[in-house]
């Protein structure tokens, strides 16, 4: 998990204060921020737990810090990703929900909008982010992205090409690339 922390900032929206800058903010306001973020995340978690949407799930990764979550998406049926599960990492900035979380695929995935480091190209995780979105909606969007990639702005050109031209080869590459993460 640690080797992704460096890349996390690259995926963050432009103009958003980096972790370093955030730490320079006065400690009181930051604590208040953290508190409100924590509260919001607790509420989201509660909702997520109560609604229990099939195919998606998320939970904080460590008891020390509610700002890091791990999520799981089951590949939608009738897509090349059917019966596969993907792990993602969520990192919430202290300005959440006014800034989007940083989301990465941790399970290697062959997908037009995901690069080989797991970075995702999805508008709502960048400039289209809004405070009404939450973990659940992000996960649902990502789940549907698996079935309906946006081939206009691919991060993985080969995948974008194969998606339309050669579904069989695409499926083969998906399976070749996919490997279940070792459970810690």
């Amino acid at each position: 998990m640690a080797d992704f922390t460096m890349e996390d900032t690259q995926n963050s929206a432009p103009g958003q204060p980096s972790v370093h800058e955030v730490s320079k903010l006065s400690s009181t306001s930051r604590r208040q921020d953290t508190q409100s973020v924590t509260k919001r995340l607790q509420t989201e978690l509660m909702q997520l737990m109560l609604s229990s949407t099939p195919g998606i799930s998320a939970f904080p990764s460590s008891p020390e810090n509610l700002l890091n979550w791990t999520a799981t998406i089951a590949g939608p049926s009738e897509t090349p990703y059917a019966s596969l599960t993907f792990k993602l990492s969520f990192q919430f900035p202290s300005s959440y929900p006014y800034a989007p979380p940083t989301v990465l695929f941790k399970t290697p995935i062959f997908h037009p909008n995901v690069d080989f480091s797991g970075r995702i190209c999805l508008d709502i995780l960048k400039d289209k982010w809004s405070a009404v979105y939450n973990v659940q909606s992000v996960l649902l969007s990502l789940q549907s992205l698996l079935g309906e990639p946006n081939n206009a702005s691919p991060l993985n050109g080969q995948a974008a090409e194969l998606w339309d031209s050669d579904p069989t080869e695409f499926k083969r590459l998906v399976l070749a690339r996919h490997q279940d993460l070792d459970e810690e």
Partner: protein
Amino acid sequence: MTTLHDRIFASVFPPPSEVDVPTPTATPILGSSGFGEPFGSQHTTASQSATETGAAEQIKWDRAWHTATTFLSLRDEPIHAEQDEETLKGRWIRYAGPETQKALAYLLSESSSGRQLRRESNTDDLLRWYFEKVVLEHYVKHVLPGLIRILRKSQVPNDLFEAGQQLHIVKSIYLHPLQNHVAQTLSNGGRTELARFETDLHGLFTHTLPQDKVVENLSAFFGQQCSLILNGVGKNGMQDVVSSVPVVRQRTLKLMQMLQGVGLGGYQAQRIFAEVMSDILTSHIKSTYAGVWTSPSNVVDHLRDWVENSFSRFVVEILSSMKTDNASGIDELMDVTHADVERWQELGVNKLGALRTDELFDVIVEWENGSQGAIEDLKRYVTTPSSRTYLTTKFSSVVSYRLLQPGASTTEILQVYISIIRAFTLLDPKGVLLDRVARPIRRYLRERDDTVTIVVGGLLADPEDESSADDVLLELAIEMNKSATAKGEDDADDADLDYDDMNWMPDPVDAGPEYKKSKNSDVIGSFISLFESKDIFVKEFQNILGERLLKKEYEFDREIRVLELLKLRFGEPALQACEVMLRDILDSRRVDTFIHKDKELDLNDESAPELHTRILSHLFWPSLHSETFFIPPEVESLQSRYSTGFESLKQSRKLTWLHALGQVTVALDLEDRTVIEEVQTWQASVIYAFQPSPSEDSSTPITRTFNDLVETLHMTGSLLRNALTFWIGKLVLKQTSTSPPIYAVLETLSDEDAAHPGTTSAAIAAAAETATAAAAPAVLSEHEVAQEKMEVYWQYVVGMLTNGGPMPLQQIVMMLKLTVPGGFPFGSEELKDYLEEEVRGGKLDFAGGVYRIKH
């Protein structure tokens, strides 16, 4: 022959006698070289004559010395003190003849020229010689071992008496020749010399006797005698003691004088005496006043009186017997003044205070049985900061040791706490002490889960209800009534601002600078303020109130009063829900009457059941049991008619029926009897299911299987079983078969059935269970609520394990604690049980200490 032999022997080897062999008178004067002259040189005439006179003088001295020392030497044998005086006298006392007298006079005279010559040797000072050679050696050889033996026996007080007596005799024997024969030859009657000799003798006694033994004996002796005299503690009862007191007193004084006479009194004895008297004071206070707690207390006055009239008097007597003759400055200090007596009285009061402090916990436990006197005594004691600190520290440690233990029930602790509040309010009206001792108790009580329940239960309890269980804190209810009747107490809050208050007292010295007596220092206030946050209290109050409102008939004076009181303490907003709950119940009555009239529910035929409702605004009520099951159709139709009535009365509001709550009066017409019972709804539904359906033959007893009942009633198994047990206990049903369980109505209660051992014992067991079943609370307990939430927590666990991979129990608990809003209410053990349930259910795997979700 022997004599001759001895003499010959003695002529060669000097006898081991202390008596020097005198120089024979005929000894030729050989002369000796004078100082600074060569040996054997020619003497000058002057020096020659001086030497000659010196030699003659020396011989004279030596002869006198011989005579005197022979007279002064003592027999080489122990003194048997037990012999009577005459025998002793005859044996030990010699009378000096004229020659001896002359010799003594010569030897002791300052002007004796022979003395000069003997200056260098040890034979110039007869008295010194007597002490060192005769007395010392005789004492060490013959007296001391016996004394030590006596003292080692440790038989108080006889040893000391014996030892003292022996010393006394020994001393008089030692002194006798000096007093009778030597003294008159000295200037001034030899007073100085005798005194010096005596001092030496005392020093000898004091330093040779084993100190610890003497101290031990002396203090034991003092202790015994003094307690006999002062406390009148006798083994043979009062009568005997009274008669023997003068004897003992006499004896003690005599001994003291004796010891003083042989030098064992003095400073050391005074110190021991002081220690003993201090102990005596303590033990007197302990034996006389311990456990004497009646109010009004005159213990302090009694003690002062005792100190003044018994204690001090005795001390004066003893001290005067200890006085030495020589008038040194110390003796003046030994005169007992009035100031001393007062100091002793203070000392006594302080010791009494210490005793009461030690007793305080028991005093408080016994508070209800009248132990106020002890507090009155303590009040005289806690006047200094140090005594106050001592009191609070001591008491706190006793409390934590004796009260704040898992073994003590919360009710007990609360009960004692009430007494503590009352006692300390009396002791220190300003409340500083109470504040200090109450802190640890309050902290401890906060940790107990059931504290709130008991406090609230106590507040709402009915003091007139004798039957209520032991664990109900009736004290609180009584206190509540009291505070409700005592009006105008609130004025006291501003007492410090009342400048006309002539009884105003400043805060005690040890009160903090910002100390302010909290307004809630009365019993009720202390309990209500026990919890930092009023939420817990209010919540609990809400639960209990809900319970009572649903159970009781329309009589809520007490509840209303408690609510009003709590509103004063917590403010109205906090208790809004409770207010609504009360309103609901009161409104229900009105609405119920109205609907009954409106819908003409009462005008139905007699056979139809009557229905009354309590309409609850469920948002304001604690979680209620909401199990559903089928209710008899008659009731259901009534309910729907009632609902329409309600909805027409209150537009846009809807009734939701809570079947599980409520009471039913059931009348069962059996063949031989009629059973009328006040039961819960589910119990009624179950018995209704035994009503013969039209297709059934009502002449034979109706039977139902357990599974049938579950199906027809849609009731949970546990609830159904509970109800069946209830009816079996009431001898209305009986179980005819165990597998499958079949139940039948007992239409006729034959003797056989009633007397059947199986039935009766089962019935008894069932009756016990019935009691608990009937008492099942309407409001869900916190635990039950939490249990319901477990379903939600399970989702958390699933989410956690799905995303975070397998985890050990502790980590799961930690994650739950962090992520569940409001905290995770279960401990790891409870979670473990739950998870193990899920493992059995096949949803989880448990291996290698970690839980893993099963896909």
